[in-house]
């Protein structure tokens, strides 16, 4: 049985840990709110962009722009979005597992990764998986810069014929409690379909439809990546908040169990001392 002193020591160490997890939870909650606001504010732009794109692409054939042309997928690029840090429950491992399954399912196809987030890059680098070697893999810049660099790179590889399609694997944000890993194809662009009922507005187009498309399509890829990054950020903070909350609760449980144990130990010590006194008195008497 551990001594009173040992138990006291453990209680204070658990309490320290609890303070840290509590603080991390509060920080994650604040960051989650900010990330969530950013995702909401980004929505009008993305929606309008989809609208313009669906309207434009409904008037042209698939061959009118290279980014619309589907090829047989022999070489596939995957942009994997994870967090830089751990301590956020199963957040990273869920996304990484999906990406790994994606790679295995592709069989003969050549899959090349590009990473945003240290965790994903560490996992696949250890396993010697092919990855694009360009620049830092961490969240070293703001999401819009990261998105623009990543999208530019993926588009460049597709247009040069180095890849036949590009996917993004990231964590969709449902709520603070629920993040669902997802894989979505971003290149070639599959323009959203126009509903039958929604009639096509006849626009004047300036400069020309071709110029507009070659301007809008790359931008659209960038916006999709940007949105994914925002959702992933919100998801990361949500996952961390949940993980830290349960860690804090576990610490509370542990502290009360240990306190109980401590009281028992103290009681036992007192009883033992009393017994000793009484039996000594009896022996002398």
């Amino acid at each position, binding site marked *: 049985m551990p001594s009173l002193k040992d138990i006291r020591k453990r209680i204070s160490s658990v309490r320290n840990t609890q303070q840290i997890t509590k603080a991390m939870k509060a920080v994650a909650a604040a960051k989650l709110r900010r990330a969530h606001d950013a995702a909401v*504010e*980004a929505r009008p*732009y993305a929606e309008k962009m989809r609208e*313009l794109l669906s309207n434009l692409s409904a008037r042209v054939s698939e061959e009118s722009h290279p980014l619309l042309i589907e090829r047989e997928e022999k070489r596939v690029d995957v942009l994997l979005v994870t967090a830089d840090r751990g301590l956020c429950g199963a957040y990273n491992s869920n996304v990484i597992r999906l990406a790994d399954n994606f790679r295995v399912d592709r069989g003969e196809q050549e899959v090349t990764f590009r990473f945003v987030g240290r965790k994903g890059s560490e996992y696949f680098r250890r396993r010697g998986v092919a990855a694009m070697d360009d620049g830092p893999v961490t969240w070293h810049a703001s999401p819009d810069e990261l998105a623009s660099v990543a999208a530019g790179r993926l588009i460049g590889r597709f247009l040069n014929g180095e890849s036949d399609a590009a996917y993004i694997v990231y964590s969709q944000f449902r709520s603070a409690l629920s993040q669902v890993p997802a894989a979505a194809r971003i290149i070639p662009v599959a323009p959203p379909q126009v509903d039958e009922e929604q009639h096509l507005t006849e626009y*004047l187009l*300036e*400069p020309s439809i071709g110029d507009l498309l070659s301007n809008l399509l790359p931008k659209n890829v960038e916006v999709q990546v940007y949105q994914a990054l925002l959702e992933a950020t919100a998801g990361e903070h949500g996952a961390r908040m949940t993980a830290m909350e349960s860690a804090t609760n576990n610490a509370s449980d542990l502290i009360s169990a240990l306190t109980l144990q401590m009281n028992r130990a103290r009681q036992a010590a007192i009883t033992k001392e009393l017994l000793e006194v009484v039996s000594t008195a009896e022996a002398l008497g």
Partner: protein
Amino acid sequence: MADSISLRVVTPVRLVLEEQVDELTAPGPLGQLGILPDHAALMTTLDIGQLSYKTSGANSVITLTGGYAEVLDNVVTVLADAAEFPNEIDTARAENARARAERTLEDRDNADDQALVAAEAALKRALLRLETAE
């Protein structure tokens, strides 16, 4: 006939402006593009430049660094890469950006084409911001 246009400027980061305006002028690809109420439906790209609009006689300006605009039924939606009101402009940052871009452009023998194009656009943006902030 409608007598005002509802103008909405959105960037990937936020909704910058939502207002009823009497008329507006945007930096179109073929020069300044004036839009009055009852304009025909139009979809266009936008250059780096100033978007000015008039609300009951008062003129206001906002900087745009490229994007798209859609005009439809007296609703103008501007999708801008970035948009700022004059009082939001960080002149120190713009001044830095200008100096950086000018250095790249002067040293044009050592830079590749892509870097030059990027520097030129950066210079244009910096000049626009400085000019608008004044």
